[in-house]
């Protein structure tokens, strides 16, 4: 009955099968499939408007899908009776615009969800929040408000905020796109550490160098379909599809 119980770590942690999604008349996903194993780091690249952000938003049920199936640890996301809380405990998400809560300090931003949503003990959460602040190298900024932090610092608080929920998968939606070039690196370092620690990560990104270094697998999407995919070693050198080649030649 409960599919979640049947899931074992040797099966894909996130499984996307033939997903279709449209906004009104506009079809943005036209049958996308991919499997992400536990501990894998997957990068999705492609021109803007190719549906890559929509795809990872669907994994978190921020957007619903019209057809196909998405499972996270065996739990079906495309289900009207979906337990969103259970899903979102497993899946953390970081946004392009950080979306911190501006009326709370950095530390409070990290502590809010575990206290309000998971109903965890405050002192325990606070200790964890301090560890996370340290992990994202923001010690000393605990009591600063988001408005007082740089974009890169805010984004690292946002990552720590997601990590505070102890997710199994992290989704990163163009997290460096809104940042100044000099602060991009500090955020990427944080994400790389996470990936190296074995966190399952799905990144939508334009940072090709980073994707090449960190990703286990790279997917190239264009106009709602996956055009090409492969491990970085072959993907960047042996791209066969002309669309991929054109995109890579523009960006690299």
């Amino acid at each position, binding site marked *: 009955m409960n599919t979640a119980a049947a899931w074992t770590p040797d099966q894909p942690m996130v499984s996307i099968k033939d997903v279709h999604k449209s*906004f*009104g008349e506009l079809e943005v996903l036209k049958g996308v499939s991919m499997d992400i194993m536990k501990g894998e780091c997957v990068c999705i690249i492609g021109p803007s408007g190719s549906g890559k952000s929509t795809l990872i938003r669907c994994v978190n*049920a921020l*957007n*619903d899908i019209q057809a196909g199936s998405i499972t996270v640890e065996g739990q079906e996301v495309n289900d*009207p*009776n979906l337990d969103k809380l259970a899903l979102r405990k497993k899946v953390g998400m970081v946004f392009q615009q950080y979306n911190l809560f501006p009326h709370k300090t950095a530390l409070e931003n990290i502590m809010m969800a575990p206290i309000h949503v998971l109903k965890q003990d405050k002192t325990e959460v606070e200790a964890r929040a301090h560890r996370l602040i340290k992990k994202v190298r923001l010690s000393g900024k605990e009591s600063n408000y988001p408005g007082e932090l740089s974009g890169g610092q805010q984004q690292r608080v946002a990552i720590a905020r997601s990590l505070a929920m102890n997710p199994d998968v992290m989704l990163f939606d163009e997290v460096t796109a809104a940042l100044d070039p000099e602060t991009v690196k500090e955020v990427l370092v944080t994400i790389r550490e996470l990936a190296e620690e074995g966190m399952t990560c799905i990144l939508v990104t334009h940072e090709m160098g980073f994707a090449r270094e960190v990703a286990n697998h790279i997917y190239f999407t264009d106009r709602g379909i996956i055009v090409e995919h492969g491990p970085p070693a072959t993907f960047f050198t042996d791209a066969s599809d002309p669309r991929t080649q054109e995109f890579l030649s523009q960006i690299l």
Partner: protein
Amino acid sequence: MSRRQASLQRPTTDLPVLIAPSAGSTGRTAGRDSGCGAPPRLAYWHGFLLLAALLLSAGVAEAQSEPGRAGILETMIKWTPLLFEGFLFNILISFMAMAIGTVAGGFLGIWQISLLPSVRRGSWLVTQFFRNAPWLVLLFFCMFLLPFQIEIFGLVVPLPDWLKATFGLALPVMANVSEIVRGAIQSLPSGQWESAESLAFTRRQTLWMIILPQCVKRMLPPWMNLYAILTMATVLASVVGVSEVMTLTGEVLSAEGGRTDLLVPFYSYILVWFFIYCYPIARWTVYLERRFAVNA
């Protein structure tokens, strides 16, 4: 049955403010403009709808009224010319108070940005004082403290009550106009002053030829809003005995022998009149605000 159906559906809240921000479904995002978030446009005809409802209620009340007494509708029609004259008097008072208040407030507002500290502070103080005082108290102030006649060069000019009331209403208008003018002038980028100065305009020339013409657009919506507030405030004059529409309504009601069944129709009648006069002004103000905001 219905409860079971409800429990089968996805858990949603009825808190409407939460519906719009939800990203759960796209249909909702797409339909936001026409859907839940946007307030419905209240059209002008709603005012007439109200009037129709009022007349209907009067008719119903009439059907129930005792025989031998004049019908409510009949009574209302009978007194309408008189009441309408009173209403026109309210409008006249509002025009005059607005004119006086605008001229006085215009100068007061310009003085608020004077280079002379004493003028600046003095006009600021006057503005704040009359802005923070209740309209009714200012009205009393003028009613009691202005003489009933004044002498100018040996000429005796009588000051009737309604004129005193007009002055009383003009005072808060003046203070509010003063703030509108000051706010508009200060909202202009300082580059306007600097470029005018570099072109050798004097301060006075800069103000009248460059700054103020640009301010008119910014001042118009709040100025109209103030006019609507003033119009609604003219009924305060009834409290101090000026025979405008509220006073006349009271007199009509007592002339009809204090019939209690007349109270609701008559007061609603007056409310609807004001609504029909003020609502278009409010709509127009909103329209201008939007237009200027886009062009600015």
